[in-house]
């Protein structure tokens, strides 16, 4: 199966290991990976800040870049959701709305793709340790992917799973919110880190690089011995 990877700018620039793990995992599951080099940012930072006009060019660029794809897979719930949002942005536009709809129909978040399209629950991963999972808001509420990551994690050999208290609460990232409303964001991420600590987990896992950068950045600053991992890295552990 041919998969076109939408890596996201955070993974491209800051978390390339997540991208590498995604590629290896999908290849192991029998996919052939294509990465169009013309991909840029999905436009979410500007879009969510209210700069809709400014983000449209990036969106068009992305629609064009992924037009040829059969399946688009993205290791981020939030950015995958953004591809689904394009159809609303271009609503009423005779050229771009149909294109955006096609884009949305073939865009999957990584764990969603593995469960829904590849129909695989056990990816053969193995990792010893106690872990908890941060359910990111856009992936859970807006994209509607809730069970897929849990199903996949439950099959990871050796992984003991503890539910995160207050898991439905946002970690305080929110893109530009984290710098624009820094004082509020700090309180939110602090509570999230406290909850992670309560679980006694060695690993906090997530499926969105943004949330993980936020939670991880705070954990690192506080010097806590908790490893922050993207789910692609966990599923690629053997």
């Amino acid at each position: 199966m041919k998969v076109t990877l939408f890596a996201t700018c955070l993974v491209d620039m800051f978390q390339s290991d997540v991208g590498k793990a995604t590629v290896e995992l999908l290849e192991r599951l029998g996919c052939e990976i294509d990465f169009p080099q013309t991909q840029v940012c999905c436009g979410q930072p500007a879009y969510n800040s209210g700069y809709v006009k400014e983000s449209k060019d990036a969106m068009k660029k992305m629609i064009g870049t992924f037009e040829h794809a059969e399946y688009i897979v993205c290791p981020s719930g939030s950015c995958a959701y953004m591809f689904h949002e394009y159809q609303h942005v271009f609503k009423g536009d005779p050229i771009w709305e149909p294109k955006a709809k096609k884009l949305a129909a073939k865009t999957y978040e990584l764990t969603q793709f593995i469960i829904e399209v590849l129909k695989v629950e056990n990816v053969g991963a193995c990792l010893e340790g106690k872990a908890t999972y941060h359910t990111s808001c856009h992936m859970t509420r807006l994209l509607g992917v809730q069970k897929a990551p849990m199903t996949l994690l439950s099959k990871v050999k050796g992984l003991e799973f503890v539910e995160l208290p207050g898991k439905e609460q946002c970690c305080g990232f929110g893109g530009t919110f984290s710098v624009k409303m820094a004082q509020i964001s700090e309180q939110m991420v602090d509570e999230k880190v406290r909850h992670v600590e309560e679980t006694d987990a060695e690993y906090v896992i997530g499926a969105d690089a943004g949330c993980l950068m936020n939670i991880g950045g705070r954990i690192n600053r506080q010097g806590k011995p908790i490893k922050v991992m993207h789910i692609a890295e966990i599923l690629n552990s053997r």
Partner: protein
Amino acid sequence: MPMKIGNERFGERVEKGINNSFMRGAVAGAQDNIGARRLNAIEELGNWEEWRSHGEEIRQHVLEHLDYYLEQLSDNVAKRGGNVFFAETAEEANEYIKEVVQSKNAQKVVKSKSMVTEEINLNASLEEVGCQVIETDLGEYILQVDDHDPPSHIVAPALHKNKEQVRDVFTKKLGYKKSADPTELAWHAREMLRQDYLTADVGITGCNFAVAETGSFALVTNEGNADLVTSLPKTQITVMGMERLVPTFEELEVLVSMLTRSAVGQKLPSYVTVLTGPREELDVDGPEDFHLVIVDNGRSKILGTEFQSVLQCIRCAACVNACPVYRHVGGHSYGSIYSGPIGAVLSPLLGGYEDYKELPYASTLCGACSEVCPVKIPLHELLHKHRQVIVEKEGKAPVSEKLLMKAFGLGAASPTLYKWGSKIAPTAMNPFTSEDKITKGPGPLKAWTEVRDFPAPNKERFRDWFKNREKGGGTSWPEPSKTEKHF
């Protein structure tokens, strides 16, 4: 209390909220407690998503035919001998109510809980003409006694106070001499209020829902105070926001059930009081004179706009109880009597962007509010729409941000610029980087790195790795078991 509370800047209000550890504990506890009860209550009902769709449908239908239902309501109130006044502004509403109160030579008014009367600042207007106004909802009563402390939550207005604080207020202002036990405190308030009900000349209520078909009003309380406010004084004035109606009792039943389950996780509240017009010949109680004041105060300007769905609101505060931002900053940080996500959407619409331009940004757009709303208001989408209006129409965004976003637009849309930018990033960030992380960043990163580390840009971007790999070169695979790393 007008809609706007205080004159401090947004940042100062938030700072104050964050530093109020008691308030934060109370809010977090209430959110967790009410949140769990709400989940039980909706689970027990079953098919919650269908209920939500139905609730949304009812509210949308009413808004689409608001003129029709308002006319029907007015006609039916008039038929039952009531008076109807349509107030376009807060001032008009207050003037009318003042006239009614003065025409009765009223010295004392008892009130049941009503956000719309807070919005129009009715109490101050009545006090100006020498009338004593007494709030009878326990939460509102506490706030009133405490020198008109503003409400911090639309359902539980005194959520920010603990029982010791309430005791102190009662001791200082009411000569209370007992303990901080909530039962004793409530008994004291009850004794004080009982006298007021008996001696009040006018009763003023809000309106949870008006029923157009019959000209009736439903009031939902857990204290029974609305019953006393509407049955003892000779004159009753009901003040309603112009959108708060349902066509018939059938829709009333649906919405009341959804309201109480969403608000406090109750199947039913202790009291649902439904009133229709003034006392009739065979009635044993009820007002002799009844006035309905329908308040617009900016609502009709929202109709027909992209923000219309905010008028679907039934004021349950489920969004407030689910909001992670409200959780940490509390209600007073919003600078409006309408706090939380609904307040962040509604306040700029009713009060203008000048006073409330920060509120739409006080959200991570996490969608928790939209998820719990019983009438499916897409609250996080409306917050996003506000941001778009602020940037594109109001021009209220900071210049530095505009430039940054313009640059973002150019950079993100151009693969060449993007590639170039991301390629030089590690070098550009070099002065700020140590051990693969940035601990003190420049520009927008400054706020981030004050409390968190930021990862240093990868020396080899993912795209380069992939390209090299396609060519058969590049770095080798990371050892999977060694991929454990800190973000």
